[in-house]
């Protein structure tokens, strides 16, 4: 039962604004009748932006007393977190633990994603219902983790990201084991989090801190930079005047029209999907929305790294930013920077600063599943669930995944990038992938 304070259009718009490319509506709302139909969005861009309508979703267990993830935090002694990040001085994550001994699964968010995002929470509840202790972690590319956890203060270089996660996961392991019995460990993640999972598995093969029972990759990119470049290309001006700003504005306007003309009590996910059915946007415009959402993530990452390292990239070096400092100028600058430029102008020079032998080729190769293809091909405990029409994958990359994972890959024909993650069949495929097979 929710309190009926008439939510203002502002709250709705805020939700919607953060929605493009990350469908923010929580999995918990709505108990619509189950539909057995096929996943409704055949268009990969619509799927990516709109996600899964409530009646197509996997139904999580309804409990008399609802169980919610509890947020925990770890702060690193003497860490010099810049003043403007006063609110992320500690690393936060969320756990849902069973009462008795159980297997534990780590869930890693996608690019820029937070441990409490709707996708992570869905996975957390899905596996909790299946009997796991679940621990949800933000992406190392989330600005909060850059400020509070990251060893180097930069994100987007997979070996560094993996190291940050591996350290954090060992801390969490120690903490959980002091309170609960854990029978075995598994790890999963979607999007970039899936790539992190794969590299964590590879690393653990040598270090053996977890001896992962299962590793589940959900909609992974094959090559981080190839996928990021794809997003960047969607923001390049199309036919002169079709700017991303216009696409965003159009989306907001269509939402506003819907809000004015349709009466509804509350904007729950069902009403939201009624809105989506009225949306009239071209593929180009949808791609611009997805690209803009990714750009917001990358500019948050760039700005945070720049401030943490005092690198002088978008903020002048030695600028003291306090909690009252206007940041708009830095957002404007950072949001004009492509991921490719960030790589060439910031990330690579930093990697070369810490390791003089670093080359562009090596840095790029380090962020590709192709680097650990042999390991992935021969590890029976690594499973993949994804979509053939995932817009972040090139044709040859889909072929690579099929070839590498063989029978351990479940690929759906439609669903876009993580759009069908909550779809019944997709959720069941994830659960099946985690089952033990000798």
């Amino acid at each position, binding site marked *: *039962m929710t*309190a*009926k*304070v*008439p*939510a*203002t*259009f*502002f*709250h709705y*718009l*805020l939700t919607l*604004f953060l929605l493009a490319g990350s469908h923010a509506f929580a999995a918990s709302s709505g108990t619509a009748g189950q539909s057995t139909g096929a996943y409704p969005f055949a268009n990969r861009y619509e799927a990516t932006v709109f996600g899964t309508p409530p009646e197509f979703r996997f139904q999580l267990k309804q409990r008399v007393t609802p169980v919610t993830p509890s947020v925990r*935090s770890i*702060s*690193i*002694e*003497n*860490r*010099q*977190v810049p003043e*403007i*990040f006063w*609110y*992320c001085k500690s690393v936060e994550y969320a756990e849902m633990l069973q009462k008795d001994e159980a297997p534990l699964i780590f869930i890693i968010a996608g690019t820029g994603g*937070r441990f*409490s995002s709707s996708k992570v929470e869905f996975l957390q509840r899905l596996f909790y219902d299946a009997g796991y202790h679940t621990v949800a972690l933000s992406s190392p590319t989330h*600005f909060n983790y850059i400020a509070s956890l990251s*060893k180097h*203060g930069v994100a987007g270089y997979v070996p560094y990201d993996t190291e940050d996660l591996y350290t954090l996961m060992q801390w969490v392991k120690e*903490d959980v084991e002091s309170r609960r019995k854990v029978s075995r460990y598994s790890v999963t993640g979607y999007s970039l989090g899936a790539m992190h999972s794969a590299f964590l598995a590879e690393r653990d093969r040598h270090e053996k801190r977890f001896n992962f029972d299962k590793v589940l990759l959900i909609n992974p990119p094959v090559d981080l930079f190839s996928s990021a470049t794809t997003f960047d290309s969607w923001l390049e001006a199309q036919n002169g005047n079709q700017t991303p*700003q216009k696409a965003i504005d159009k989306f907001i306007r269509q939402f506003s029209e819907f*809000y*004015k003309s349709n009466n509804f*009590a509350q904007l729950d996910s069902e009403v939201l999907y009624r809105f989506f059915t009225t949306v009239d946007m071209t593929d180009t415009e949808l791609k611009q929305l997805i690209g*803009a959402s990714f750009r*917001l*993530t990358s*500019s*948050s990452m760039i*700005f945070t790294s*720049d401030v*943490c390292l*005092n690198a002088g990239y*978008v*903020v002048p*070096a030695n600028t003291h930013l306090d909690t*009252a*400092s*206007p*940041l*708009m*100028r830095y*957002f*404007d*600058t950072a*949001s*004009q*920077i492509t991921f490719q430029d960030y790589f060439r102008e910031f990330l690579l020079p930093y990697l070369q*600063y810490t390791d003089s032998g670093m080359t562009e080729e090596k840095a790029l190769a380090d962020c590709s599943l192709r680097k650990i293809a042999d390991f992935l091909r021969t590890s029976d405990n690594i499973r993949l669930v994804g979509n053939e029409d995932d817009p972040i994958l090139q044709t040859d990359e889909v072929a690579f995944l099929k070839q590498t994972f063989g029978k351990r890959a479940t690929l759906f024909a439609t669903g876009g990038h993580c759009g069908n993650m909550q779809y019944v069949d997709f959720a069941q495929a994830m659960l099946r992938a985690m089952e033990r097979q000798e």
Partner: protein
Amino acid sequence: MKTAHPSRAIMTRSLIRSLIRLIGLLVCLCALAGCGATRTAPERTLEKTPFRTPVSHVVTAPQAEDEAEQRKMKNVSLLAVNDPAERLNRTIYTFNAKLDRAVLIPVVTGYEAVVPPQLRSGIANGISNINEIPRLANAMLQGDPSKCGIIVARFVINSTLGIGGLFDPATKLEFYPQNEDFGQTLGVWGVPQGPYVVLPVYGPSNIRDSVGLAGDMVFAYYQMEYLYELAEIGDRDTARYTNTVVRGVNTRAGIPFRYYTMDTPFEYEILRFAYTKARQLESER
């Protein structure tokens, strides 16, 4: 207006004192509850390094004389909003966030833990029902008869079938809640939003909506005084205080927003943009 109660000043002072004590207690509780683990990791202290990027995108502040350049910057910016008092606004924003974390959210959490959902829903419905009157006033001032009709229907249905507003059968009968305030009314009358403002405790606003909010608050004050009169409540100060606290807790409980959970350090900018855009579209009819 009634003459002030002689002991009102004293009561107010003791009220403030106990409020401060309550806040102090809550802050201590939060500090205890929110205290997580600490780890020693000398390689993760984010020591300063001499590293600088070889290429810099730093834009120096546009000079005042270069107005064309400034205009260009404003057009480029996706999230541009007129915010001349930004430093002050940001200071208030940070204060609000800290207050929210230390006091409001713990109070809401306590409220949700102690008060059963049926009762909370009843309180929310009751307050919403009382607020139909100012909504009606605004719908009338906006000259919108269809909205007036819905609001009147809601008030009548919920006050009777809904047992004095504790339930909301009107929504089930498809008379949906209308969200009207004096800021919107001013907007309909053609008053521009004016510069962006962050109000203490309350949050995002602008000059127009701040005036609107003051108007709505004055209206609510007299409306409540009238209701106390009707209910023959003697101890007005307690009634006023209870009303403020209950409304405050109820309002915060109904807003899902949490500070600093937006996945970006540009939360202030995004909130400012979304607020301004929403208010602009709301009064564009």
